[in-house]
């Protein structure tokens, strides 16, 4: 299962947070801070995995990708495959790109709830829901149309 998904920038400011395993607010902020502290020290040449039980317990793999000014972090337990999750992060970012046209941090800042709707197409309640780029885009486009949402309805299929 996926315990949580975080997106924060190079100074640690959260841009999107989803905790599928509930934590009290103070704990959530601690996890964000400590993860940022560990992950930001790692140059891009190192592997995309961190093991640190002090952040979210023993059964928690921290898998992350760094894109320009944003870190995408997924916390998963033993039932998930590390490499598959790495692919999933890529799918998420691609999907954002299809909605926002060359997505950048500013898009996430001002349309964070749209980014959440995109994530909701991929992960639901901590379980992986859809991994096919096409299907995700189709679903977003359809939702965008009935919602009158300019951004989602533009999703490139």
């Amino acid at each position, binding site marked *: 299962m996926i315990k949580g998904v975080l997106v924060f920038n190079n100074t640690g400011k*959260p841009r999107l947070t989803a905790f599928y395993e509930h934590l009290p607010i103070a704990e959530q902020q601690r996890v964000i801070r400590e993860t940022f502290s560990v992950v930001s020290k790692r140059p891009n040449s190192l592997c995309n995995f961190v093991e640190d039980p002090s952040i979210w317990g023993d059964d928690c793999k921290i898998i992350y990708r760094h894109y320009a000014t944003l870190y995408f972090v997924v916390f998963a337990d033993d039932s998930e495959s590390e490499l*598959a999750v790495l*692919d999933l992060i890529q799918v998420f970012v691609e999907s954002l790109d299809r909605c926002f046209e060359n997505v950048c941090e500013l898009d996430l800042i*001002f349309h*964070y709830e749209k980014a959440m709707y995109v994530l909701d197409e991929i992960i639901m309640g901590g379980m992986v829901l859809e991994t*096919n780029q096409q299907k995700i885009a189709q679903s977003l486009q359809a939702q965008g149309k009935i919602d009158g949402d300019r951004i989602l309805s533009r999703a490139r299929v």
Partner: protein
Amino acid sequence: MFEKSLGDLIKGIRAHKRDEAEYIARCMEEIKTELRTTNPKLKSQAVLKLTYLYMLGYDVSWAAFQFVECMSLPKFSHKRIGYLAASLTFDESTDVILLTTNLLKKELNSPNPFECCLALNTLANIVTEDLARDVVADVLRLTDHSDPTVRKRATLSLFRIFLEFPDALRPSFAAIQERMKEENPSVACAAVNVVCELARKNPKNYLGLAPVFYRILTSSANNWMLIKVMKLVGVLCPLEPRLSKKLVKPVSNIMNNTSAKSLLYESIVTVSNGMMEHEQIVQLALSKLGEFLSAKDQNLRYLALVAIGNFQRTSLALVAPFRSAILSCLDDPDRTIRLRALDIVTGMISQDNLVDIIQLIVNHIRTTDGAFRNTLVEKVVQACCQGTYVHVTDFAWYISVLADLAVVPNNVHGVLIRDELINVAVRVKGVRNVAVATSLRLLGDERLYRAQTEQANACQVLHAAAFICGEFGTAEDIESVTIRSALSHVLRHETAHVLPGSVQAVFVQGALKLSIALAGRNETVAPEGGDADAAP
């Protein structure tokens, strides 16, 4: 009329970098007023702003009831925001969840598939036992909906429902099995996902589904499904040896033919977890593992180390061929990789190779950086004392290692080393003289007296040194000159007075024991240099 939209709020926060907290407090007050409105657009915007503030770390639980109100707004784009807020902020302690039951049931039964999906999504995040009991029938019905996006969501959400309300599992299981056979890959995947998660919790109950898993492993082309099933197989095989025999062929096929590194890796791990009795597939897995270990890709190398750790648990001999590659990983710039390599290396320890391996690690301690150095020190001590020193054959050597570790710069394990020195000296009579000689050396080592900051506490080692000298340095076969030397250290070392009180106390006790010993030998007690008022 002039209410802030979410965009306005965010711009405002960015503009108030210096007084962010006050600005947000003002906005919260505005939002509280806005929530009282009956205008659905304004209400939903207010709720949206609150979810944003929640992400920044502000408590919004006081607005839970308003979130529920928002969920009941007629327009999709408005109620969707309420559902988002609920998904993000509700937890077991949110009592208004009770109020959502009828709301959710209404949505689940809506002819509009988007509304069903909305409800299912939020349900998966907030479901409680009561809610589960009330909606499971509706969700089950939706697993047969005409729209596949609804079917896949309904199927997937069943897992969270079962977690809260296990009684629902038995009557629903047939529906899940139906979904596993579906044409639509997303729905089938969702069903397989649920079954795999359930089976990980209760593997025995799912052995009966082995034929289904066999079918998937031999015929599916969907990597996600294959990965989930492969992982599950690793959990089931140890429980049923006949199963692993049957699966050797499909798993070998996958290992030889897949182009997906993720699937290949999971196959290797599954072999290490559940197929170790089958020579051929183990060899195949190990050869693939070798490719991972020598890959340029850091991720593959890290995963290789994880898998090797698995194999090592069953058989040390199997991982011997990888030894030099693993040892070179101890030098890797990547801390994640170094830690794994260290785990494996200490797992290799036996009586025969303890000295060599510890020497290797100690060499690394000299060349590596601060935080990792402390981890290595701790590992060395743990490795030596595991199984109550089962691997240690020469305690004199162990004491020399401890002495070397004691003087490692910025050492935070002073207490650990102190306790080990005392432990060994007390329990192992034969090395007491060596312990005394070592302690004497340590007492004379300037570095230890200076080593006391908040974290670095190597000075604690002096506690052990003084204790050992006092306790065992007075034995009959110890020469008087040694005793006198020890006494001079504990009495008049120039920097002794900067040591913590507890250490100084041991110094005083030591001085007493040593003086008595000398007096008992009818020798003068005055330490070398005769400085009578040097005692602290």
